[in-house]
């Protein structure tokens, strides 16, 4: 009888355990599904970078446009203080500055790749891509969420400590990059068009 009880308890535990474990990711899953539903978008951004130069602290500000189209195209166009363009399509990263332009395969520059994939992976709701590069920490609710992405690779963590993406439902509102050296950049996003 006692044995039977214990067996039942065990069964119950086994049934409930996965539910309990997946309680947090259920929200992450829901968020990613929500994000995956958005196939393209445009937004404006303002970015603030806190930079330490020896004994001085400097704040660099810039602003511009962002655009994204599923599955893998992402463009960040800085308009102020100077025009600069950074475009990612698939595995090609193109950086343009004035008349100069340079393309490199994204995966040859892991420290750039990790930043691109944090944003691109979130925008496309690509769980597999995000899991490959980061350990994920979801907090908040679908209405007001924060996703903390820490690069899996130890050598990359020596450069990029953490990327924190925040949003409201399917819209990203902020991307914060914490560099291992202490510098930090915060990009605030205002969606201009949701098709």
């Amino acid at each position, binding site marked *: 009888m006692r044995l039977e009880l214990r067996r039942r308890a065990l069964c119950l535990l086994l049934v409930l355990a996965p539910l309990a474990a997946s309680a947090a990711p259920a929200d992450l899953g829901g968020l990613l599904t929500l994000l995956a539903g958005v196939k393209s978008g445009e937004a404006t951004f303002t970015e603030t970078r806190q930079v330490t130069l020896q004994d001085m602290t400097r704040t660099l500000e810039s602003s511009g446009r962002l655009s994204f189209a599923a599955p893998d195209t992402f463009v960040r166009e800085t308009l102020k203080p100077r025009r600069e363009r950074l475009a990612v399509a698939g595995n090609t990263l193109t950086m343009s500055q004035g008349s100069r332009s340079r393309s490199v395969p994204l995966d040859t520059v892991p420290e750039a790749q990790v930043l691109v994939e944090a944003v691109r992976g979130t925008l496309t709701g690509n769980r597999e891509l995000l899991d490959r590069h980061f350990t994920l920490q979801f907090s908040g609710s679908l209405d007001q969420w924060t996703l903390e992405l820490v690069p899996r690779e130890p050598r990359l963590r020596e450069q990029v400590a953490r990327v924190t993406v925040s949003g409201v439902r399917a819209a990203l509102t902020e991307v914060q990059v914490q560099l291992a*050296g202490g510098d930090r950049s915060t990009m605030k996003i205002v969606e201009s068009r949701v098709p």
Partner: protein
Amino acid sequence: MRIQALRRPAVWVWLAAMLIGAWLAARATYVADLSAFLPSSPSAEQRVLLEQLRHGVTARVMLVGVRGGDAALRGEASRGLATALRASGAFDSVSNGDHLDSPKAVGELLMAHRYLLSPAVDAQRFSVDGLRDGIADTTSMLGTPAGAWIKPLLWRDPTGEMARLAETLLPSGGPRVEAGVWVSRSQPRALLVAITRAGGSDLDGQAQAIDALRHAFAPWAARGLSLDLSGAGVLGVQSRTLIKAEVERLALWDGAIVLALLLLAFGSLKALGVALLPVASGVLAGTVAVSLGFGQVHGMTLGFGTTLIGEAVDYAIYYLVQARATPATGSGALHWRRHNWPTVRWGLLTSLAGFSALVFSGFGGLAQLGVFSVAGLLAAALTTRYLLTDLAPDGAPGLGLRMRLGQATARAAAALPQLRWFWGGLGAAALALLLVLPSAWRGQLTHLSPVSAQALTLDASLRADLGAAELGTLVAIEAPDEATALQRAEQASARLDPLVAAGLLAGYESPTRLLPSAATQAARQAALPDADTLRARLKQATADGLLPADRLEPFIADVQAQRQAKPVTRADYDGTPLATALQAQLLPAAGGRPWTVLLSLRAGTQALPAARLRDAMQGLPDTRVVEIQPELDALYARYLREAFWQSALGALAVLLILYAGLRSLRRLWRVALPLAASVVLVLAGLTLAGVALGVLHLVGLLLVVAVGSNYALFFDQLAQQEAQAADAETLASLLLANLTIVASFALLCTSSVPLLVALGEVVAPGTLLCLLLSASWARRPGGVGQSAP
């Protein structure tokens, strides 16, 4: 009898010659690279190409893959291996994508000359606006991961010339980076590129480098990782090992088959031993002649040497059987010398004529084959004529199955003429087929290489992973001196840059990135302002206050130092990994060849037509666009064409010699027809089988004619001796000789070295056909084989 033989001078002369030969052969250099099959008088484009293949850095590149374990372990292994290899001394440079590992010396060298090297430096760059732009470029990277690289140099290099240099020097393609090292995109494999210190054609040095690599990898192998290895030198060493193993295997089997046949035929060990003497002498003489004539022996020539066993043993068989034919003891040698030697000598002469055409080939490999064959056949025939007549004055002592063989041959020889029309029809049909079917002469240069398809696949996959396409397009520039070479390279770069900007090219490598011409460096120095001017301009340019001007004194000091600095020279890079890159792009004059600059182009998404490139290079002195694959194809086409001419000349020489001896067009026709028909039948057969015919097939055909002419001459001889019809012994010797040669060459068809297969599939059926056709078309159908003993 043995004692008697020892008194003869021929024995001692032969022994002495063999000893000297063995000593020389032991000291010979054996090579196995493709260079022996490259022409000695190339066109300008080919010269560039060959220079690269023979001595270029590309020949010293070793591609390394590390498999097994997980990404972290492979990364650890890659770093560990790179460190060990750099310390081993066997490598000029080792790259694995780990930028942290790049030697400090290089960075300091570039830093100390950055204002002479950076393409951005001109007067505008040091104006107030230029400085402001440069500083803005640099500061825009702060607060990004790239900032970590920039910060330590910021006060010395606020305009970011080092970033500019890194941009121009680092290839824009390249492998994926994972766990800090290069990895494959398609499979779990870490990648390294090592440049060996040993030259690409120094196979011993390459083998040592491979050993050093395997030794350094041993600890990782013990942890379950495995190694993928390729590159020109690695393939060269593999080829040499393969050819060596194949030559040994073939020699062994060939020997066994020939021994078995001889044993069957003679039933005597002594006869066997004697029969092998001309073979041994021939191979040794051929090797020594090639070594003395060329300074080295190609492995393939030796491979070919094993096939000489088949032909040289013929002489011994002819002698041993034919000298046996006389009834009186002790008179066999004399009888043979009088009655049979003239025919053998004649056959020898035609063979020599055929092969001597190859001696004059512009391609080292073919010339070696020619010299080897001529020397080898000559030695084998002389050994037969002078040594065998002393050692075995009455031919082979034993009888074995020879009697039955002789009777069977006689019966066959009697029956074969009934097939004369069958063979005639078959020959005509084959000829018609050859005329109708598209040409099968479509062999390629790579078909000469013994490298296995598996090794080539591995090589291709490593190259694809590394983004190091092997075959592409080069712009080659020649110049009388270094300064002119660099200036011309800059002119060519100026024409290429617009193509890159337009996206038609992904990029190109140029030595002027590391080593701008003296004029360019002087111009950049002239654009650097003095300290006061620079200080004043900086004050204006940094008005936004992001980088305070008074902190930039290190920058001003560096600029002043580099205004006075001596220009960068080639010697400055000695001992750094960059020297390797420079060597690949700027080849100093050597051996009558001018200074050469090689700009290798990286194709954009679509290949740029060579004509377009040639247009872009229009008017530049001594500047050529070289497409490597078409150039290699052209090289092979020339090779084949030359070999055709030589074979035709060889065949003509054979005909002339035959005519000189036969003195009758009618007899010449009878002798030549079976040979020509055999060639046609073999060609038709191979064409039908879909074989791509190449140079080695052509050499094989020459061998068919050379060997076959012996048979044809014998039958002609028989026809002349109308009174005494052919005895079974002579016919048996022909059949036996033919069987050994067919067996030897059929064995070649089992080889994994394609060029040996090519020889085998031509010579084995070809010589068999020569014998059959000669017998079938022999004059006096009833005349042969009637007087069985």
